């Protein structure tokens, strides 16, 4: 069974600094998708960034980028120039077309990120 592990329950970063959130996953599939979702306090979860496993190039969205290491099954999120609005719970998620799933997401436990002014 596929699993997603986020080993950092909480992280803290100084405003304007860079922080990296870790995520590892386990799968026997070769074709899958990885996501980072962000849930600000008392707000809806939103997609931050996605990565297709068949793409070697790491995805980037403005200040957010990933380090996708397929062989190591690692998918870390780097937030550059951290802002107060980045404070949130971050979830790493996985999905695949195989095994009968149709977009069903498998989540990690989440990492709570605090940003200090």
């Amino acid at each position: 069974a596929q699993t997603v592990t986020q080993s950092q329950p909480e992280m803290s970063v100084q405003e304007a600094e860079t922080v990296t959130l870790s995520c590892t996953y386990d799968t026997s599939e070769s074709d899958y998708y990885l996501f980072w979702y962000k849930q600000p306090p008392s707000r809806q979860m939103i997609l931050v960034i996605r990565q297709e496993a068949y793409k070697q190039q790491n995805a980037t969205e403005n200040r957010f980028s990933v380090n996708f290491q397929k062989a190591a099954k690692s998918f870390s999120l780097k937030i550059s120039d951290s802002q107060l609005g980045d404070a949130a719970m971050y979830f790493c998620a996985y999905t695949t077309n195989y095994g009968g799933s149709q977009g069903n997401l498998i989540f990690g436990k989440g990492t709570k990120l605090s940003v200090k002014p």
Partner: protein
Amino acid sequence: EAGVTQFPSHSVIEKGQTVTLRCDPISGHDNLYWYRRVMGKEIKFLLHFVKESKQDESGMPNNRFLAERTGGTYSTLKVQPAELEDSGVYFCASSQEVRVSHEQYFGPGTRLTVT
């Protein structure tokens, strides 16, 4: 465009009672998903609708949970009778296409507390 909405935002019920959660997806989104997060654990998939049909309900915990999506619009998730372990946050998400790469838009969740 309105996002995914869920009602109620909070619900506190006693063990043995019935509760019905509602999710209104984004208009035009055929795919609707239910997830649940129990305190301290991962968000877990419950089931997936494509229009009014259940595509996958492999994540439903047991037969005390009943999900419906009449007419392919909003969905309800009924828990009857509720047990203490049903407490958690229930999320609904919708997407326009079934392609797994397609973004799922999440609702704010319903926090269910069973006492």
